[in-house]
């Protein structure tokens, strides 16, 4: 069930340049079904910013009823959000969308994240490890100062880091890591900027995988048709998927990027 709750801020920390980790507590957490779902956050009470902001659930703890969001303070809304203090409340609508499916027998998963696409992969990785999967990670960042969670991923499995300027890990993109390291895997999971996802779909064509998309949203629940994408098998037609309610996770190759 989707709920709308004023959740309590348990902690709120800057973990990299303009990157914040926000831990929220509330009953909404009980409704989380799968890693990769997201929430829609209202910043402030007023009309400016007016719209909610979609943020992935990075991870959650059902027992403590907490969930962690990791976001980049960039525009008006997220910059304001970064000013919220511990024990204040944040208006959250969620959980929204369908997350990553982690069913099936134990296999090896390759998780590929770029920038603020990295957070939901953390919850996914934990879940996979819990279910006995082997996980490998490739994390791409602009540079070291905006990188985060490398160690946390490292604790769960093999972790490659690539930065555009080479300030951390190898220099280049996540696709370069794949070309070079040729990691073995059964399923890949990816979240990041659309150009990265496009490149990945080309590079990993034929492989079984899932990608998580971003799109500008209005309602976040499937009612307004703001976040619609064409399907790859009907690129000009009227069939479509909604990122907010049919996604944000789709099988690789399903959606026209």
């Amino acid at each position, binding site marked *: 069930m989707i709920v709308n709750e004023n959740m309590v801020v348990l902690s709120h920390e800057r973990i990299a340049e303009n990157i914040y980790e926000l831990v929220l507590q509330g009953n909404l957490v009980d409704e989380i079904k799968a890693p990769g779902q997201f929430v829609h956050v209202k910043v402030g009470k007023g009309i400016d910013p*007016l*719209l909610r902001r979609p943020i992935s659930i990075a991870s959650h703890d059902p027992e403590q009823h907490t969930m962690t969001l990791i976001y980049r303070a960039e525009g008006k809304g997220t910059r304001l959000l970064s000013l919220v203090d511990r024990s204040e409340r944040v208006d959250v609508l969620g959980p929204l969308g369908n997350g990553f499916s982690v069913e099936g027998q134990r296999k090896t998963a390759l998780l590929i994240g770029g920038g603020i696409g990295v957070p939901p992969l953390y919850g996914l990785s934990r879940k996979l490890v819990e279910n006995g999967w082997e996980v490998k990670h490739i994390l791409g960042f602009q540079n070291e100062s905006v990188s985060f969670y490398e160690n946390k991923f490292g604790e769960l499995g093999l972790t490659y880091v690539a930065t555009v300027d080479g300030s951390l890990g190898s220099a280049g993109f996540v696709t370069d890591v794949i070309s070079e390291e040729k990691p073995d895997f059964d399923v890949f999971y990816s979240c990041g900027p659309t150009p990265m996802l496009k490149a990945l779909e080309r590079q990993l064509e034929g492989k079984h995988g899932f990608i998580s998309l971003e799109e500008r949203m209005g309602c*976040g629940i499937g009612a*307004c048709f*703001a976040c*619609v994408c064409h399907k790859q098998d009907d690129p000009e*037609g*009227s069939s479509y998927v909604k990122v907010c309610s049919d996604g944000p996770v789709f099988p690789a190759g399903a959606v026209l990027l």
Partner: protein
Amino acid sequence: MKSLQIELPGLSLKNPVMPASGCFGFGREYSQFYDLSELGAIMIKATTEEARFGNPTPRVAETNGGMLNAIGLQNPGLKGVMENELPWLSQFDVPIIANVAGSQVEDYVEVARVISSAENVTALELNISCPNVKTGGIAFGTIPEVAKELTEKVKEVSQVPLYVKLSPNVSNIVDMAKAVEAGGADGLTMINTLLGMRLDMKTGKPVLANKTGGLSGPAIKPVAIRMIYEVSQQVDLPIIGMGGIQSAEDVIEYFYAGASAIAVGTANFVDPFVCQRIINELPPLLEELGVEHISELTGRSWGKHESSTVHST
């Protein structure tokens, strides 16, 4: 709530609060939050003859106190709406207002003819004012004579009362209202979105793929109030008002201006419970204002019920 019951052409409303077209889909999503039977009515997403994908994304952008959208009338088409959406909606005890759109007169007429025959569609809303569609739209919404003719043609085939949705992007809203009144409209809905635009700070290019979009939300409320104030004094049609409504107080302001019912659009995205909340907040607010029935407030800004109120006390 007796104080909220309203009778309008085609519409027996439990209360004057309904979601605005395009901001509530066909109801399915919001039915997760509350019982849609609590609503006064539902204005469903625009329906066109053929299914439409609409405009490329990004389709929405935020502005100060408002938002822009350029959805481009995406919808499953007349057949899809008739076969899937309206039957699903019939489980609720709520009148449906079908928003009718098209590119040319024939499309409009065909959609109106068919959709007005659906059992739970009790009124049509003629969308002559969608700013996000390249063909046709603009002339229908801005030239009185063209609007009148379209209204006549649609009215001819409609089996239910016809509301015409006016565009605010005109020099003279009263002329438009009078034209559609002359064309046989049973009511007006106003306003649709103001044509606006946002540019990206980094690229300098429009944020919306469609470049321009329709401005909605609290920012436009003063424009809507002014137009309803002007129009309600000049035509005899009931008006369903919309534009930036977020609270019961906003509803009251629309009634004062001259509305007989209201619709809530953008606010649904911010608070999915907003319509329900407003419905619940109205009765105590009316009591505070010392009003027995909300319709007494219609047109109070220009003294519509002034004499009758004096007589009744």
